[in-house]
């Protein structure tokens, strides 16, 4: 019984939140990795792309709510998601046309593109703040829980409850669907295959008649979909705040590098590695250990390895360890 209680506590506070956060990071890291593989630079504007997409989703959601449209027990934001993706896609294609294309034609060094992405980040960040402000915005509606803590206790007869929020369930399900579609697209369709060829060897791909502009366009559209989905899921799960999204950049980059930048499978694995490490290290394990250990050994402190304020330190340390010992990441990166 104690073992089950410990397991449920762990699931409630570590496994379920870790899965949801990991799925959000994985989607973000997939976007970063795709841009790296096709356009060959680290996009510092990615966090703000997520913020922009989420802002679009919030605005459409408000519109739907004003019209009285809802999605039953599910959040209205899911209905707004396709519209938000379209808006973000158009915006990203616009930035590509106005900003990035010039440097691509020049074959500028990657680091120049990184600085250009800083400029884009400034503009996007300014736009988001301009349009929706800097405050915390919650836009979750519909049913709050799939399983409530009390229902679970009554059903199982355990002392500990397990609560799964609707947003956490939606996050994991959506992420799985998006990833499945992405891999199907990359491996089975003609466009996807041409993207992989372009990423593997640009010159060879150009020789075999692949249109680079089309590949780039499709990439931006996929990135818009991934970033908006990641941003909306994160916002539903927590809340929307422009600055928080900017700060997500670090764990997302860490996830992409840990997995091997340029490698989609790596991005997903990296996302979950970072998320679980972050949640586990900042969660006080006192209760879990209290159930597992005999009473004489039960810990007196909280057994919290690091305070939650240091969650960036977790992704950073993992990043440093990977850079020191395996700079190519867990999976070999550089191509999709």
């Amino acid at each position, binding site marked *: 019984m104690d073992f089950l209680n410990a397991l449920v506590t762990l699931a409630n506070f570590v496994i379920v939140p870790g899965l949801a956060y990991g799925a959000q990071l994985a989607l973000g890291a997939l976007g970063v990795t795709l841009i790296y593989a096709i356009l060959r*630079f*680290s996009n*510092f504007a990615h966090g703000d792309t997520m913020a922009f997409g989420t802002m679009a989703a919030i605005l459409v959601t408000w519109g739907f709510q004003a019209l009285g449209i809802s999605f039953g027990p599910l959040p209205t934001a899911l209905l707004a998601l396709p519209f938000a993706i379209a808006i973000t896609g158009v915006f990203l294609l616009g930035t590509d046309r106005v*900003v990035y294309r*010039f440097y691509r034609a020049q074959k500028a060094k*990657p*680091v*120049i593109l*990184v*600085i*250009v992405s*800083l*400029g*884009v*980040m*400034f*503009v*996007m*960040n*300014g*736009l988001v*703040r*301009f*349009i929706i*402000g*800097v405050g915390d915005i919650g836009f979750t509606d519909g049913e709050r829980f799939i399983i409530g803590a009390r229902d679970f206790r009554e059903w199982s007869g355990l002392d500990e409850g397990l609560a799964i929020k609707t947003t956490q369930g939606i996050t994991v399900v959506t992420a799985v669907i998006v990833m499945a579609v992405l891999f199907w697209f990359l491996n089975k369709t003609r466009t996807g295959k041409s993207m992989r060829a372009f990423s593997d060897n640009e010159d060879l791909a150009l020789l075999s008649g692949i249109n680079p502009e089309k590949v780039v366009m499709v990439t931006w559209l996929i990135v818009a979909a991934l970033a908006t989905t990641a941003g909306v899921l994160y916002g539903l799960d927590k809340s929307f705040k422009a600055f928080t999204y*900017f*700060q997500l*950049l*670090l764990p997302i*980059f*860490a996830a992409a*590098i840990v997995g091997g930048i340029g490698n989609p499978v790596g991005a997903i694995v990296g996302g979950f590695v970072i998320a679980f490490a972050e949640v586990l290290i900042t969660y006080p394990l006192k209760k879990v250990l209290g159930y597992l250990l005999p009473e004489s050994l039960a810990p007196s402190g909280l057994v919290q*390895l690091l*305070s939650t*304020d*240091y969650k*960036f*330190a977790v*992704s*950073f340390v993992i*990043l*440093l360890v990977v*850079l*020191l010992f395996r*700079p190519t990441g867990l999976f070999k990166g550089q191509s999709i």
Partner: protein
Amino acid sequence: MTHSMRAPLLLGLVIALLVGTGLVQGWNATLTILNYGLISAIMALGVNLQWGFAGLFNVGIMGFVALGGLAAVLISMPPVPEAWNAGGVHILGGLALGAATIVAAVMAFNRMAKGWPRGIAVVAILLIGFFVFRSVFDVGVDLVESVNPAGTGYLGGLNFGMQNYREWGWMTIIAWPVGGLLAAGAAWIIGKTALGLRSDYLAIATLGIAEIIIAVLKNEDWLSRGVKNVSGLPRPVPYETDLQQDPAFVERAASFGLDPTMASTLYTKMGYAVLFAIFLAVLLWMAQRALHSPWGRMMRAIRDNEVAAAAMGKDVTGRHLQIFILGSAIVGIAGAMMTTLDGQLTPGTYQPLRFTFLIWVMVIVGGSGNNFGAVLGGMLIWWLWVQVEPMGLALMGLITSGMADGSFMKGHLIDAAAHMRLLTMGVILLLVLRFSPRGLVPER
């Protein structure tokens, strides 16, 4: 226009803008902009060393600035003897144990044969060491933070003046180079791990260290009071109130036709401006000497073609580490100066957009690879950063003048004017990169 004319022209523009600000908004505002502009110029100089000379991409400037600020507190504030008596031993002992753990882990890694026993040994040392460190350290932290938490609650600094620390304000100037040392230490750790890999890895590693340094400053109350802030740092220049009490000063002010309050404010700010200008001049002179020395030529050779430089026997990673540390140290010095000017350390106000990316705009706009360009870019962009907000407000006032008072759109637009800054900076950065990628004062 020849290139040699560009720097004087830009200097003229900066001076004209400052004088114009003085005529329109008052000399007090001008001196404030000038002081922060001088500090920004020093930061831009440090970043230009890294980016312009060596092509290193550092996006952790905020962290080095904050470390400089920490140095200002640790040197210029008086120690808190009660806190040292209560928990000083535990804190120092804990830190020593933590350092010993890392040394032991590194030694185990270097001495033991490759294989899984080594991995397990290193992880075990780190884990056990971490718990021992926490068990000693946490006790000290609790003891220190419980000493008068509303007033001090931290260990304090090293100012020998104790209660009379305000009279020992010159110690603050010592804190500036110390800030450089702290920043250099952090840069060494980052450089050791991330240099020699792909260029974007350094960027991401520096992004991370900056966030962590801010997190440490916000949470380690025993060190610098965390978000409770340390205020009332001693100054290297006279206090306004002291000047106003001084009959000789009041008389001199009256002879210029100024009232004592205004005169004392201007005098203090001028004092800062002179100090900062001296530091800027010395650093600029050193940077120029470095650029024109054989070492500077080697740096640019490495930047322009790493493979060729390596083939000529240059230690590319070693040189990169050197210049990365030097540049970060300069940023640290500027960070300490800024905290001195503010008179307080407020970790909550460190924002990457303001302290990292704005400095990048300064360097790119000014002219990467040209020290004068970076310095003037720093002054120019700082002036713009300050002035865009009133300009944005005026613009919004003009746009919304036709709208009904209290309408949603009007309120929203006027609130949003504050965010014009980021948009403007982004657009300026993109325009310069596109149409004048070498900056206003290009490298010769």
